[in-house]
């Protein structure tokens, strides 16, 4: 189940009204942590969860899995903003952050779904229109049974530093691409 910061906050006090008025944000990392840098998206969420826990941010929800699938459309529909995080072996930049648009003409090509198709499913099935973004983290090695590379870890930390202001204040200028 998604880990919601409201259920994991350090204080039992009710969140201030200002917090409740904020957009609800889901940060969803996917990939296989057993395949070295393929787990960068999941590591990104783990690092962010630790950061958010320290500040008690009830508007943030974190989740991760091996891949995206149909049921993730339900979680997306329950949020105003969704940030997907995935590893990439197909980019030169340390990380890229871009906005996503639902793709109705998806080809459901594997047992997993693309983030665009999850958003499309969320829209078609539940009438939800969350703003959606994809953060891709550059990976270097993809073998099973080994740890993430130091370079990929560095990229994860840099991306966390980049995204935290947005998660704390998701209004105004949205950083679309680094």
């Amino acid at each position, binding site marked *: 189940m998604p880990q919601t910061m409201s259920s994991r906050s350090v204080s039992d006090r009710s969140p201030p009204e200002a917090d409740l008025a904020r957009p609800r944000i889901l940060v969803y990392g996917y990939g296989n*942590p*057993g395949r070295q840098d393929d787990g960068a998206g999941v590591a990104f969420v783990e690092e962010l969860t630790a950061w958010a826990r320290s500040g008690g941010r009830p508007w943030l929800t974190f989740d991760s*899995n091996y891949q995206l699938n149909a049921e993730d459309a339900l979680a997306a529909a329950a949020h105003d903003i969704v940030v997907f995080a995935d590893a990439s072996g197909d980019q030169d930049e340390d990380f890229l952050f871009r906005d996503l648009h639902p793709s109705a*003409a998806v080809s459901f090509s594997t047992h997993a779904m693309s983030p665009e198709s999850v958003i499309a*499913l969320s829209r*078609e099935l539940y009438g939800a229109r969350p703003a959606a973004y994809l953060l891709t983290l550059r990976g270097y090695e993809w073998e*099973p049974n080994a740890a993430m590379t130091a370079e990929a870890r560095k990229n994860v930390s840099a991306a966390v530093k980049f995204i935290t202001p947005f998660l704390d204040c998701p209004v105004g200028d949205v950083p679309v691409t680094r």
Partner: protein
Amino acid sequence: MSRKIVIEPVTRVEGHGKVTIRLNDEGEVEQTRLHIVEFRGFERFVQGRPYWEAPVLVQRLCGICPVSHHLAAAKAMDVIVGAGTGDGLTPAAEKMRRLMHYGQIFQSHSLHFFHLASPDLLFGYDSPPETRNVIGIIAANRELATQAVLMRKYGQEIIAATAGKKIHGTGAVPGGINKNLSIGERDALLKGPHPMNADAMVAFAQGALDFFKDYYAKHKVFIDTFSSFPSNHLSLVRPDGALDFYDGVLRAVDADGRTILHDVECQEYLAHIREEVRSWTYMKFPYLRHLGPEKGWYRVGPLARLNTAEFIPSPLAQAEFEGFRKVTGGKPNNMCLHTHWARLIETLHAAEMIRTLLNDADLQGNDLIVTGKRETEGIGIIEAPRGTLFHHYRVSPEDQIVMANLIVSTTNNNEPMNRAVNHVAKALMTKAREITEGMMNAVEVAIRAYDPCLSCATHAYGSMALKVSLLDAADNVIAQRIR
């Protein structure tokens, strides 16, 4: 001049596959092959690791069916720690594992039918790919799509509650389980707000079966004849002949229903099953040893399981099973697309068993792990959603894994999938002057019935053949090396 048709990739199949169909000068189908182009040398990677890590490590194999690998490895390690092959576990441990496995079967079968198979049925395999998908399903049958999402989510929540987490679950450990099911977890799954509860899931599974049977009534000839061919069938069954996904003995029947493998204990599988290597693919071809590769190949999966089992130990699924068996007069069913029907009967059985188990107080037991006399070799076999899954390990006195051999469900179905491709190609492509979208899709539909997961189906890095081809600009092979 002969022509070679290549269909790549096989869409809606996990991993990568390549199909080649060779036509001769007369335009007849001369040769068909399903190639595996991705491989993972996992067995090498677990060597040297402590045996107790195996149930978690093996989940690195595949993000599609990690629970099946988790449980198969745990069952093998039960043997290593002297806890037997399942009978030796405490009631809490065995039932928690079974609940986890039913959750996996339920979510996997639901996903396959609604998201991978139903678009083919609803729109026809000759319809455009851009509409033959889950988004298209919403437009055609919104209720079906909604239920599919909820069934998948419910199964995932069962897994999270029993395995501890969604990624790299730790629930099953050698000799047992590391947690029981709390009252809160039980109540959330058993009596959650509609429709996220066990009763609703049983009803959804029944609805899915009604959907299929309605479709079947209208398209009987297509469902009965598409890629149908006789084969042997193999699966675990409970010693009394009941369908059992988690444990039992190995049984195989031939196309006419004669028993050709008589309830073999899992620890003895190696005396009965062999794997053939062919130079043109990384994926092996398992067969029954006493019959040889030509006559001993078999199918696994939902269709095979309903052919080897004598009954289903849950009332609603049993009633459906009786209707299913009636179609073939009690004989084995060799009709490829009836696999979807069998899969839905199993989905209903899983939902019923989840409901039954959630009402069992043993799940709240605190006696979780047993140990006994340490062994050096262990075999764990389980019926994964896609079919029989074998895990075989040897462990050194220093507790390190020194040998691992895995036969995954998709590998067990290698020969039948190749035959399915051949059958469809001969039916649709002989004398064909062009290859239509519908023909290409038909090949994929035949493969998809087996729900293959090719990403974890191959062993490599050393022991398997590696084929390197040098092609010229016109795609003619000018050099080729196999090692």
